């Protein structure tokens, strides 16, 4: 819980600093306009430059243009938001899930735990249920925070594409937390050793997440926009600019259905993992 809170705090701090940076950028744009200098993206046009020296000094503040400057300043924040949070939850889920059965067997305490008056199945379900629920809620919270961070990081056109954030925000993060936990429990019950189970969970998580994302894209194909002047509906999720005349995108109305599909797939795999973990616990534990 401490880790998750720390992650959320980090997310929020990143978001706030991104907001400040963008506000600073807009202030700079206003300064440029006030000084009569040409705006950064303009390639032609007539401007009334009051002082050439002021203009070149101002221009040096954001080298390479808006997107390049932003991504170099916030590279760690972007990495954290896109890959760090999912990876963090994968590790947290694995480290909480793997020892549940594996450590009991490593310490031989299953001989005590399974010979109290509670049946083995009730023991397994009780241990799983509370932790799975808590982790999923944590994932949802972090996912919501990350969605806000993503908004901060991509507002004002500071990023070329928002699609790379898709698996790290909102419902997707909740599903990933559940999946990592379920894989941890399952591998722990199967391998009966905590550390190898964590490793197997990490590997399995990456494979399954990429697979789930691929399935989502197969089930809901992206729309195409072509033409000399490519326009997409506002708020769309652009997959990539392709050759410049053809752009793949998901219209904004598809966003939540896509998230729900991904969540459903992740939860289904998690459920299967927990069931196979139960089979291993039931038949092999001793």
């Amino acid at each position, binding site marked *: 819980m401490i880790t998750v809170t720390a992650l959320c705090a980090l997310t929020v701090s990143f978001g706030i600093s991104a907001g400040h940076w963008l506000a600073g950028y807009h202030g700079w744009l206003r300064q440029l306009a006030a000084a009569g200098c040409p705006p950064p993206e303009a390639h032609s046009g007539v401007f009334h430059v009051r002082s050439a020296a002021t203009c070149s000094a101002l221009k040096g503040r954001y080298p390479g243009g808006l997107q390049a400057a932003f991504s170099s300043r916030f590279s760690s924040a972007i990495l954290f938001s896109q890959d760090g949070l999912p990876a963090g939850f994968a590790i947290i889920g694995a480290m909480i899930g793997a020892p549940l059965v594996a450590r009991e067997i490593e*310490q*031989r*305490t*299953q*001989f*005590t735990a*399974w*010979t*109290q*008056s*509670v*049946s*083995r199945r009730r023991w397994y379900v009780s241990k799983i249920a509370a932790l799975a629920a808590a982790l999923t809620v944590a994932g949802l919270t972090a996912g919501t925070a990350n969605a806000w961070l993503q908004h901060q990081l991509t507002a004002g056109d500071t990023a070329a594409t928002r699609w790379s954030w898709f698996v790290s925000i909102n419902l997707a993060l909740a599903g990933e937390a559940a999946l990592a936990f379920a894989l941890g429990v399952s591998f722990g019950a199967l391998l009966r050793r905590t550390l190898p189970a964590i490793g197997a969970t990490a590997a399995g998580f990456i494979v399954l997440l990429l697979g789930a994302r691929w399935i989502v894209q197969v089930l809901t194909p992206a729309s195409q926009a072509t033409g000399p002047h490519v326009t997409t509906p506002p708020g769309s999720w652009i997959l990539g600019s392709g050759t410049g005349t053809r752009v793949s995108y998901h219209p904004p109305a598809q966003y939540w259905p896509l998230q729900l599909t991904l969540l459903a797939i992740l939860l289904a795999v998690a459920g299967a993992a927990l069931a196979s973990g139960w089979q291993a616990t039931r*038949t092999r*534990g*001793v």
Partner: protein
Amino acid sequence: MSTALQCANLGHRYRRGVWGLRDCSLEVPAGRVVALVGPNGSGKTTLMSMAAGLLPASTGKVEVAGGAPGRRLDRIGFVAQDAPLWPRLRVADVLEIGRCMNGGFDAVLASARIRRMGIRPRARIGSLSGGERAQVALTLVLAKKPELFLLDEPMANLDPLARREFLGSMFEACAETGATVLYSSHAVAELERVCDYLIVLRAGRVRIAGDIDELRDQHRIISGSDGWPGGGWQVISQRSTAGRTTALVRRDDAAAAAGPGLQDAAPTFDELVLGYLDGDAAARPQEGLA
């Protein structure tokens, strides 16, 4: 008299194809203190684990108090070898676990016993000695008040005084509640003082099982000079030293004389157990008359 533990052709095959227990048929009456004796790898732990519902039966079946062990968990008190407990928990926490996971758990008895042992309730299990940990595990099962105690070498780590105290507690529990105790151990000598039922295992099979007094009546220790015994005796095991052969024999006709030149005596508990541990493993297992 009801049966505390019943096994019918019970067997368990481990993953590598090794049989831990085979053709085990037992009927242990309720209220007995059973000595389960056998060398390492003879199947004592396998038998106990199956009776506690930890291992599934590959062949045959096992019943505790008339039902499958999985359905009788509340009536079984199991302590595995080395009394494994969660090392990072405190003693008080472990007793709390016992209270939460068992209905009818006598928490007052448990904490009183812990205090009497001189074990601090706030101590972590990992910091306790092996003997103290064994006492905590035993307290856990005593407070559960089961009908069948399954104790796998529980006194291995206890000092002589603790052993005597523990045996006393076991006796009390049996006397008050009519519980049955299954006790696996190597230490044959101290078993004799408390046990009234014997099961000898070897190589995964039951060699003999029955009431100790009855078994002693059915066997004789006979010794004579070399050349003896001839045919007609049901020899369990024999041993020759310095020209004399001593044998443990089973005799259906208690009145039959041994014959001239032969010494004849009832076997002690030791001689009975060692005779069955020592003999030919291929001999047919004998069921004592219940």
